[in-house]
């Protein structure tokens, strides 16, 4: 008993140690970027020689951050809206009905999440170039919808299964059409799920590099792609202004993730569960 106890305790300590190592190093890594973004000159010392905020202004002007942020917002909100518009009804059908070819359809919806984005991104970019959509903001939105719509379906299905089908039957009895039933019964009940799905799609779309990278043109870059080009074409640019931009990027995603975590318990993303009973 004593020996087992010791091993269990050592195991816990090891895990906590690893977690601390992970968190501390990442924290310091972010701190390094943050420090560099407000540093005048920083070469091989503990702290930079002087402080300045001018890199943020430089980054804003140099990388046209205003335009990039505007494009990012347009793309992200269009993707969230369209993904919900086609995803939620599809999730409803998949949760409530059995039909021929349902398994095949589920597979089609699961594949974009299981295949690397580059694999379908390159043929997709070729098709979009043929259709004169690549390089425009519409192409970027369409490309980002491919993983977003299945993701909405995946997240929404358990939420829909939780709703008592009798409510829908009641709405039917009173003569509601599918559309009205959806609008007046399902959407209000699904609000938490819709919120969760849209926030997660939002965070994912902000961070989606590959698809945007493959389909964006010069004036349809989102923040993450503009950031990549800024680093990749570095040399002429001060690393500090790249770091300033990276901090802006982190700020943007972090705000949305924290909002998302406020509404979505991270432990309930995939499967719905009972509350854990407190040990007596």
């Amino acid at each position, binding site marked *: 008993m004593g020996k*087992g106890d010791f091993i*269990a305790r050592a195991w816990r300590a090891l*895990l906590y140690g*690893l*977690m601390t190592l992970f968190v501390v190093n*990442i924290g*310091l890594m*972010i701190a*390094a*970027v943050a420090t560099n973004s407000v540093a005048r000159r920083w070469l*091989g010392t*503990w702290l930079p020689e002087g402080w300045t905020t001018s890199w943020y202004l430089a980054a804003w002007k140099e990388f046209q951050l205003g335009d990039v942020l505007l494009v990012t917002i347009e793309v992200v909100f269009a993707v969230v809206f369209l993904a919900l518009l*086609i995803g939620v009804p*599809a999730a409803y*059908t*998949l*949760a*409530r009905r*059995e039909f021929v070819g349902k398994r095949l*359809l589920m597979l*089609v*919806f699961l594949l*974009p999440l*299981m*295949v*690397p984005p*580059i694999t*379908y991104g*390159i*043929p*997709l970019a*070729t*098709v979009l170039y043929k259709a004169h959509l690549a390089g425009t903001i519409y192409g970027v939105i369409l490309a980002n*919808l*491919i993983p977003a719509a299945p993701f909405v379906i995946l997240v929404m299905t358990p939420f829909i*299964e939780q709703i008592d*089908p009798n409510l829908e*039957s009641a709405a*039917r009895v009173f003569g509601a059409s599918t559309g009205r039933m959806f609008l007046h019964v399902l959407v209000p009940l699904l609000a938490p799920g819709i919120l969760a799905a849209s926030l997660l799609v939002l965070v994912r779309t902000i*961070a989606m*590099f*590959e698809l945007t990278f*493959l389909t964006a043109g010069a004036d349809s870059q989102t923040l*993450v792609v503009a*950031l990549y080009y800024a680093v990749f074409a570095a040399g002429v640019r001060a690393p500090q202004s*790249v770091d300033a931009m*990276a*901090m802006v*990027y*982190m700020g943007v995603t*972090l705000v949305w993730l924290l909002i998302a975590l406020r509404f979505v*318990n*991270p*432990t309930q993303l*995939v*499967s*719905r*569960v009972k509350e*854990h*009973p407190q040990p007596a």
Partner: protein
Amino acid sequence: MSAAGTLAARAPTDRVLWLVAPAAMFMLLLFIYPFVYGLILSFTPPQGDWLANYRKFFTTDNLWPTIWTTLKLALPATIINVGLALPIAFMMRVKSRYQRWITTILVVPITLGTVLIAEGMLTYFGPKGWLAQFLQLLHLYDGPIRLTHNYTGVLISLVISGFPFAFLLILSYITGIDPVLARAASTLGAGPREQFRHIYLPLLAPGLAMCFCLAFVQAYSVFPSAVLLGAPAGPTRVISIAAYEAAFEQYDYSLASAIAMIMGFVQLIIVAAVLGLRSALYRGPVSGGKG
């Protein structure tokens, strides 16, 4: 529940089925069609016979080794991520005051984005970064520190960006297992280790396989960090770099599609292997224990 729904709402004509149509049409047009188009394109090279692209891939010295380069990065990264996430998530399954805080802190690195991780690692892990200065201050290690612009750098960045995702997913699967089962086991005298071995692990197997596949996709399609943190000409020349170069530097969409197809094929082999391994190790209900 869904069976009851099917019965209750069967009465009116099933126009509900049409609700799935827009999403299905969308996937057909923008996922299936480009995929098939790419597949056909890969077999119709501008010069040579229908297999020319694939022959070129497997005989060119800077193309075919990219498969191994990618696997050598993606497999260890995925194993580390899932292997670390599983015990930590298992420890976090019990609801406590700190549970939500710790999970939030562990999940936050998702927001960092590859470029910030790359920049941060170049600054922090670099030869003159804080880590090097700290280690030299304590005289723990005086040699040159090379954690960036090589294999290690890309691997670390894959762990930083991949771990939170694996952790989140496994945590949600673990908390989805009915705790009553574990309490029944503990009544019969099973400690946490026996509970894990005989209750959680078998029930987690499908979720774990899924998580491994999703984490692997993420690591496998590594592109920005391999360029920014690795040595994209040599040891971290991953397959997505080869595909990108073919498409946007040589404008050979046919070859690029072939590389993309090979990439997807290798990915599917790994997924099939993982799923096969799962069913070989454990046979039982595909999903169990959900509340």
